C-alpha cells in the first residue's frame, strides 16, 4: 500500500477512510487547513469518541478547541482537565463555566493564563486554593492573595511554591511556625540573611532545610559540612556545586559517606577509602560516579556484590576492558547493564547477542551496535518486552521493524510504526490495524511526514524561486 505523497492527498485519504483514530492527528496540522470542516465532521460524528478524545492527552490542541464548542458538560470537564488544552481554550471555557469542578481544574492546569489564575485566587474556596498552590505556574501576586486566609498547611505550601517571592517568604518567616520556616529557608528566593540565620538555628531540621537551599553561598555550605548532625552534613554535601571543591574528609556516619560517594569532586584518597567501605550503598554510589579514576571503576567492577558491579557497568566512564569483563559476569542483571552500551567492545556484544535471558536480550535489542540479524531474531523472542525493545533501538533497521508490524502485542506494533527508520509506506500499511492506538500512531506518523515534506518543498521554492 502506497502512502499518500503530500498533505493534501493524505488528508483526502484520511477522510475517505472514515476512521476517526487515524484522522485525529491531522486536525490542525500544517497544510491540512483546507479540510478542517470535513475532518471536524468525521471526528465529531460519534458521541462516545468525543468523550474519549476530550480526555486524550495527545489530542491536537486545535481539535480540543473545536471540541470545546460542544455543550455536553462531561466533554467540557474532560477538556478542562486535559493537559494538552491550550490557554486560549481554557480562558474560553472559564468564561462559560462557573461550577466548582471547573474552577478547580482551571486552577490546577499548567496552561491556564496568569490573569485567570489571579482571578481565581481572589475568591477561592478550599479546593481551588489547594489547586492553585499545586500549580507551579501560579504567579506571585496570586500567592499573596492566598496568604490572607491561609491555614498552617497552606502557609507551608506557599513557602515551597516556586513562584513565591522574597516579600512573601519574609512574611511567612515572621509567622514563626517551624514547618513554614523550614520550607521558606530552603527556597531559592529566601532573603540570604534569613537563610544565614537558619544555618545556626538550634533546630537541626531547620539547618538541614537551609542546607538544601540550592543558592546557599559556598561559605555557608562549607560551614554546614561541619555540623554536628550527620543529616545536615549529608544535605550540605549533596548540593555542593561542581567546581566548588568541598573539604571532604573521612566521616563516621554512613549517611555522609553515601553522599560523599556520589560527589564528583571526590579526592582520590577518599575515593580509595570509600571503595573499601563496608556499606554496600556507599560502593554502589561510588561505582556510578563518573569522575572516578579508571582503576577504581575496575576495582568496583570486581566487587563481590552484584549491585556494585552493575553500577560500575552503568558508569559512563567505565573502561572498555572492564565492560568486556562485566559482559561475562555470572549475574544476568550485570550483563544487562553493559549489553545496551554502544561502547561495549564488539566481541563482547556478539557473545551477548546469543543470550536468551530477558533482561540481557532486551538490552542487546536496544543497543545501536547490535547486528541486524540479531535484532531480527529478537523480534521473534517469546517475551513481548524483548520484542518491543527492538523498536526502542534508535538504529533499528527497517527489516527488523517490519517484522514487528505483525507482533501480537498492539503496543509493540504502535512502537514500530512510530520508529523513524520504518519507511512511512510500511507504517501506512498498518492503517487498518485492529488496535486504535496503532491506527492513531499510523495517522500521526503520516501527518508528521507529510508536514515535514511540505516545509521542505516550501524552503526549496524560497531558495530557488520559480521564474
Amino acid at each position: 500500500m502506497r502512502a499518500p505523497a503530500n498533505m493534501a492527498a493524505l488528508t483526502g485519504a484520511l477522510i475517505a477512510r472514515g476512521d476517526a483514530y487515524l484522522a485525529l492527528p491531522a486536525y490542525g496540522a500544517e497544510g491540512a487547513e483546507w479540510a478542517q470542516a470535513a475532518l471536524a465532521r468525521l471526528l465529531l460524528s460519534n458521541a462516545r469518541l468525543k468523550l474519549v478524545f476530550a480526555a486524550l492527552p495527545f489530542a491536537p490542541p486545535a481539535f480540543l478547541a473545536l471540541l470545546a464548542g460542544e455543550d455536553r458538560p462531561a466533554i467540557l470537564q474532560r477538556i478542562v482537565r486535559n493537559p494538552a488544552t491550550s490557554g486560549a481554550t481554557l480562558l474560553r471555557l472559564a468564561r462559560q463555566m462557573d461550577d466548582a469542578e471547573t474552577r478547580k481544574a482551571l486552577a490546577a492546569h499548567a496552561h491556564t493564563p496568569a490573569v485567570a489564575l489571579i482571578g481565581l485566587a481572589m475568591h477561592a474556596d478550599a479546593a481551588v486554593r489547594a489547586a492553585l498552590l499545586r500549580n507551579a505556574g501560579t504567579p506571585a501576586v496570586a500567592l499573596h492573595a492566598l496568604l490572607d486566609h491561609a491555614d498552617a498547611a497552606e502557609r507551608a505550601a506557599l513557602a515551597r511554591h516556586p513562584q513565591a517571592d522574597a516579600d512573601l517568604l519574609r512574611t511567612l518567616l515572621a509567622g514563626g511556625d517551624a514547618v513554614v520556616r523550614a520550607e521558606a529557608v530552603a527556597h531559592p528566593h529566601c532573603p540570604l540573611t534569613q537563610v544565614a540565620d537558619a544555618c545556626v538555628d538550634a533546630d537541626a531540621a531547620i539547618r538541614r532545610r537551609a542546607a538544601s537551599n540550592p543558592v546557599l553561598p559556598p561559605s555557608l555550605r562549607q560551614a554546614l559540612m561541619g555540623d554536628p548532625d550527620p543529616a545536615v552534613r549529608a544535605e550540605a554535601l549533596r548540593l555542593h556545586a561542581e567546581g566548588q571543591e568541598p573539604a571532604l574528609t573521612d566521616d563516621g556516619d554512613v549517611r555522609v559517606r553515601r553522599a560523599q560517594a556520589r560527589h564528583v569532586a571526590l579526592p582520590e584518597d577518599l575515593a580509595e577509602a570509600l571503595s573499601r567501605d563496608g556499606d554496600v550503598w556507599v560502593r554502589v554510589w561510588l561505582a556510578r560516579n563518573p569522575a572516578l579514576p579508571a582503576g577504581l571503576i575496575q576495582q568496583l567492577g570486581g566487587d563481590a556484590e552484584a549491585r556494585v558491579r552493575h553500577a560500575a557497568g552503568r558508569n559512563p566512564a567505565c573502561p572498555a576492558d572492564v565492560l568486556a569483563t562485566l559482559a561475562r559476569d555470572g549475574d544476568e542483571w550485570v550483563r544487562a547493564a553493559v549489553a545496551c552500551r554502544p561502547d561495549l567492545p564488539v566481541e563482547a556484544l556478539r557473545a551477548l547477542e546469543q543470550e536468551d535471558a530477558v533482561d540481557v536480550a532486551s538490552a542487546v535489542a536496544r543497543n545501536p551496535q547490535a547486528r541486524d540479524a540479531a535484532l531480527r531474531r529478537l523480534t521473534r523472542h517469546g517475551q513481548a518486552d524483548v520484542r518491543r525493545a527492538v523498536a526502542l533501538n534508535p538504529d533499528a533497521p527497517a527489516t527488523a521493524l517490519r517484522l514487528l508490524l505483525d507482533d501480537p502485542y498492539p503496543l509493540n506494533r504502535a512502537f514500530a510504526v512510530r520508529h523513524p527508520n520504518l519507511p512511512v509506506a510500511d507504517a501506512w500499511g498498518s492503517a487498518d490495524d485492529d488496535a486504535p492506538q496503532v491506527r492513531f500512531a499510523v495517522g500521526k506518523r503520516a501527518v508528521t511526514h507529510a508536514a515535514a515534506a511540505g516545509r521542505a518543498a516550501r524552503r526549496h521554492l524560497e531558495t530557488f524561486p520559480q521564474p
Partner: protein
Amino acid sequence: MSGILILAEHRRGTLRDATLEAIGAAGTLKAALGGPVTVLVIAADPAPLVAAVSVGAVDEVITVARPDAATYEPHVYEAVLRAVIAQRSPSLVLMPHSVDSFSLAPAVAIGEGLGFATDVFGVAVEDGQVVATRAGYNEKVFVEIDFPGRSGVLLTLRGGAFAPETAAASPTVSALDAGAGAARSKHLDWRDPPASGGIDIPGSPFILSIGRGVGDEANVAQFLELAEGLGATLGCSRPIADNGWLPKARQVGQSGQLAAKCNLYIAMGISGSVQHQWGMKHVENIVAINKDPEASIFTIARYGIVGDMLEIAEELRKQKGIQ
C-alpha cells in the same frame, strides 16, 4: 447440598499457596454455608500432601491416588472432581484461579450444572446463597454475582485475595477409588520461569514502585536504597523496565508481575495506566504520589499525595535515617 469442596493444587510434590488461601476463604464461609470443608488431593502419591492441607477449618481430606496423575492432567482431574461432586453434593467448590483451573473449571461447572465465576476476589453468603465479587470491564468495575437457581457453585479464586490458612488441624483422611477418565495429554517437560535474581514481586507484602516520574536512570539507585531501608520490594512500571533501568522481574502490570500478596503499595511517579493497574489495583492500601493531580492512579488510591516523588523520597530517607 451442603459443605465446601476445595481442589488442592500442587507442583512437583509441593502444595501451592493458593490452596491454603482457598482453605482460608472456606473457613470464613463455613458457618454461614453449613456442612464440612473437604479438600480433594489428586496425585500419583497423595500421602505426602495430606499434612500440608490439614489446616484451619478442614474437616476431611479425600485422597485419590492415580498413576496418570503424577503431574496435572485436565481430563483425569475433571473426571475425578466430577465424581466427587456427584457423590458429596457440595454447595460450593473452590479452586485457585490458575493455569490449571483454566483447563478444568469451565468443563466441570457445565458438566455438573454449577453456577460459575472466575478470578473471584470476594465471597460472601447472603440469605444462604453464595455471592461472588470479581472485576469487570478490564478491572474498571467490581461486579457482585449471585447464582439464582443453582444449588451448587464453582469459583476460581484470585491469588493473594484471601488470607492463607496455616494453623494445623486434624481432619479425617479417606482414600477414594475414582478410576474414571483417562489422560488425553502428556506432560513433556518443566520449564522454569526466567530467573528473577531473588526479586519476588508476587510474594512481597510491601512494594514501593516507581514510574516515569523518576526522570533519569541516575535517580533509580536512590529508590533501591529507599526500598531496602523501608523493608519494601522495589517495583516499577513498564517504561522503567523498557529503558533497562530495572530488571523485567520488577515490572508490575499486565506484561509484568501481579502484586499478589501485597498489602501496601506505594506508587511513586506512576500515572496508573490500565495495564499497570491490572497488577496492583486489588491491593488494599495503595498510596499514590504524583505531581499530576489528575493522574488516574489517584482514582484507586486510599491515600494520595500530590507532589514531586524525588522530594518526597528525599524526605522519607531523612525521616527514616537512610540518608
